[in-house]
């Protein structure tokens, strides 16, 4: 009998205390969301500044801290500087090709790590973690050391090879996470229904891990488009968009950089949203 009484007590106490706690709880409930909103504002501020100053009606060619007025001139003339246009084109082409090659490489790697046990698995996992965590400058300088040693001509090809090298691990971890989260019994069921392993893979496994592959592809594309440090080491004379911007920083940036940055931002966000919405449509998330 006494056991029942003591067992019942803990449950009743928090209920009685609840009204007392409420005012504090309500305040606490406001602090964290407010903080989160401010943090997001902080994260978004430079982006808003970039977008706003793309409309800056400056008298000269270089961006000023003062906002002179609203103009669409820079949107009209954004492709007027041939070197800048070429740099943007290089960036986009390299990002597309690097992502297209890194995605299958990373996907197969992620599949191997997520589904199979094999000798050397821990070592491969460690190399992948290192590749993600190592300072970019170390990666860049080691790649340059190799290219110098091999007397390779620095340029488009060396940038591409390097980008694929740093993208592949990111695709691999994204796909691995998806593979590990999937239900293996589905694939077993398909094989029980006389599907060959290859058919079972394409009909069952592949559709399930496809969101992971697409996320990896997106990540690879964005990382490649954005990369400065490694590219700076292996690019030679070739300029990508971040390299062009970095070089022009000293003399001041033309507002067309804001415009191109804004367009790349909008395109990236749109692409990510489309991917997310189409994934929701599949009902797999």
């Amino acid at each position: 009998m006494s056991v029942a009484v003591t067992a019942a007590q803990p449950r009743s106490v928090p209920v009685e205390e609840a009204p007392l706690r409420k005012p504090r709880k309500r305040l606490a409930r406001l602090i964290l969301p407010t903080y989160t909103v401010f943090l997001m504002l902080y994260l978004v501020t430079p982006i808003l500044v970039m977008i706003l100053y793309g409309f800056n009606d400056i008298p000269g060619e270089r961006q000023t801290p003062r906002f002179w007025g609203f103009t669409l001139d820079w949107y009209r003339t954004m492709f007027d500087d041939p070197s800048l246009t070429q740099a943007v084109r290089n960036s986009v082409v390299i990002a597309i090709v690097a992502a297209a090659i890194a995605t299958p490489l990373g996907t197969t790697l992620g599949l191997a790590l997520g589904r199979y046990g094999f000798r050397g698995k821990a070592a491969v996992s460690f190399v992948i973690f290192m590749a993600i965590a190592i300072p970019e400058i170390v990666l860049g300088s080691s790649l340059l050391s190799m290219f110098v040693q091999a007397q390779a001509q620095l340029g488009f090809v060396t940038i591409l090879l390097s980008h694929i090298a740093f993208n592949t691990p990111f695709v691999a971890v994204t796909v691995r996470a998806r593979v590990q989260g999937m239900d293996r019994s589905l694939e077993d069921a398909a094989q029980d229904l006389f599907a060959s392993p290859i058919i079972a893979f394409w009909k069952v496994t592949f559709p399930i891990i496809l969101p992971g592959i697409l996320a990896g592809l997106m990540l690879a594309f964005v990382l490649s488009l954005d990369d400065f440090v490694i590219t700076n080491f292996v690019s030679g004379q070739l300029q990508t968009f971040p390299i062009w911007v970095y070089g022009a920083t000293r003399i001041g940036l033309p507002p067309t950089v804001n415009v191109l940055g804004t367009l790349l931002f909008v395109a990236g966000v749109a692409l990510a949203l489309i991917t997310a919405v189409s994934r929701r449509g599949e009902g797999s998330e």
Partner: protein
Amino acid sequence: MAVTAETRHRSRPHGIERRRRRVAYGLLLPGGGWLLVFFLVPFLMMAYTSLKSGGVLSGGFRFTWEFSNYIDALSGRQVFVMRSLMYAAMTTIGTVLLAYPAAYWIAFHGGRWKNTLLFMILLPYFVSFVIRTVQWKFLLADTGPLLGTLKDIGIVPADFHVLATPIAVVGGLIYNYLPFAALPLFVALDRIDRTLIEGAYDLYANRTQAFLKIVFPLSMPGVFAATLLTFVPATGDYVEAEILGGPTTKMIGNIIQTEFLTRARYPVAAALSMVLMLTMVLLTSIYAKALGTEDETLAAARL
């Protein structure tokens, strides 16, 4: 009849096992091969380069076991190494302190907005890293929109007194690495079993106790991954120091960059880079031993 059925039954799993292993190595080969050639071989080449002697103008470099490159590389450079470690430590503490409350709120109260809020945190990654940093330079400039009285000056003056301070550099580093820290923190917090927290309340824990005894310890893998993913890359970073800093805020990355790309002293630059990498590996493994395991790191690093 019974014997063949028996042997077939016994041999089948074995054959499948062998085939699975062949498939695994087949899948591993392309990506693993690429990483071998463009990740591991370059490190060996860098180590090899760091022991060469000679110069670009004096007939190229020869491999001569030139260990003095390491002394050369480090003499007078300790200040840059220490400064980089300091800045990276400040950046790490800053990002984790700033990101943790937001990651906590999104994980526990984000509800159906979780993905949207995470996306908001990742938004900066859709703008080039260099452009983001340049915008801060712009915002923080003496005459800039944030600090400045909007003086009417035609050209941006080379007057970056506020900018060329450690605060500007660390601030820029914190900004750029914040999303990197927020993601693993969120993943770790989101994974915590809510019934454990309810259990703590049932055992008379108040909110602070529940957080300190349950939530925080269980989020440690996330903290571990966040600190690592911030500290290690921040130590080698040189873009913030270059754009937001001045002569007194140069980091080790700036030195490596100059030695490699401007002065073309490849052996010395490679030696410096080796020192940076080995320092990072050493500190990381000490940290991993002290705080967590590599498995936890890998688990939390799965963005």
